[in-house]
């Protein structure tokens, strides 16, 4: 298979998986799920590390390092804040808490 077509195949299949896996999410989990998905796209850190590791000019290096800091914030911060949101689901069950806190605004 041509490599462009192979990547397109992966993309299309991932779209279907992405729709399918969250189709039965309960309303109380909307915000934590968004936060968890947000942390997952922090994996752009992988790309940021690759481009910084190949940097040849000062501009490339500087931009790459900024990208690494931002991506790390996204990934590490994202997983930690999601875990804190979910603490309340594991102990006493207070469903609706997250949802009402923000929708009340």
């Amino acid at each position, binding site marked *: 298979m041509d490599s*462009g077509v192979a*990547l397109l195949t992966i*993309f299309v299949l*991932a*779209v279907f998986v*992405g*729709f399918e*896996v*969250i189709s039965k*999410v*309960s*309303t109380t*989990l*909307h*915000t*934590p*799920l*968004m*936060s*968890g*998905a*947000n*942390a*997952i*796209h*922090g*994996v*752009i*850190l992988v*790309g940021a*590390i*690759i481009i*910084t*590791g190949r*940097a040849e*000019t000062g501009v490339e290096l500087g*931009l*790459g*390092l*900024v*990208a*690494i800091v*931002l*991506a790390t*914030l*996204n*990934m*590490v*911060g*994202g*997983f*930690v*804040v999601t*875990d*804190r*949101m*979910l603490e309340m689901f594991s102990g006493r*069950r207070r469903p609706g808490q997250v949802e009402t806190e923000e*929708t009340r*605004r």
Partner: protein
Amino acid sequence: SAWVDLAYLVAAVCFIVALKALSSPKSARWGNLVGAAGAVLAVGVVFASERLDHLPLIIGAIALGTLCGVPAARRVKMTAMPQLVALFNGVGGGAAAIVAIVEFLRASHGELLAALLATVFTVVVGCVSFSGSMVTFAKLQELITTRPIVLPGGRWIGIGTAALTLLLAIAVLVTGLTPAMVLLALAALVLGVLVVLPVGGADVPIVISLLNAFTGLTVAASGYVLGNTLLIVAGTLVGASGTLLTRLMAQAMGRSVTNILFGAFTAAGPGG
């Protein structure tokens, strides 16, 4: 090599399992940990497999991001969590845009059109996601008013900026010039601000969710530019599930996504 691709496959499966587990209250917390494990594995693989220059600087930058991110996420009050998520989402979009710009600077201009198209897409959507998320952060943090901000003639400013962004995108695709790319990034940053300013406070979480899906798609596109399958899978998963989640959230609140977004461009503006 093969084991790198296998490790990326394991990380991708971790992300799928994480999203699935996050959809049900019993397994949600465990699911988040599985996602984190996948991310750590992915970063470990990069360090093990790539020949990286500037290694001390790279590790220093990761340490800096961690030292800022963990305390912020630990100390934030429950009520302030949505704006922190918005902030984290925005910086992710910014990171994706920067990755694409650096890749654009490196590549000489005999590039494939498809790769250039993916680069332009990443820069535009990543910048919109970055600046848009910063505005949602400012709204939720009440740094600016949570009420819709409708500029005089806002509709025409919005349409004008969107048209300018499109023209600059075409200019980059045709000429491949760096100044055009810089202007494109700036125009997209302004566009992100203009799209989110007119959104009312109650609708902001839905917009954050939408920008989250946008960032996912930019990560997928930059994965295509870099030829990295894990970024494609992870980004697409978030892009697709984030789009569906945005619709579900809007439905739960009895709102329509197009109304929220394009209410900005109608004369009356949304009812807040």
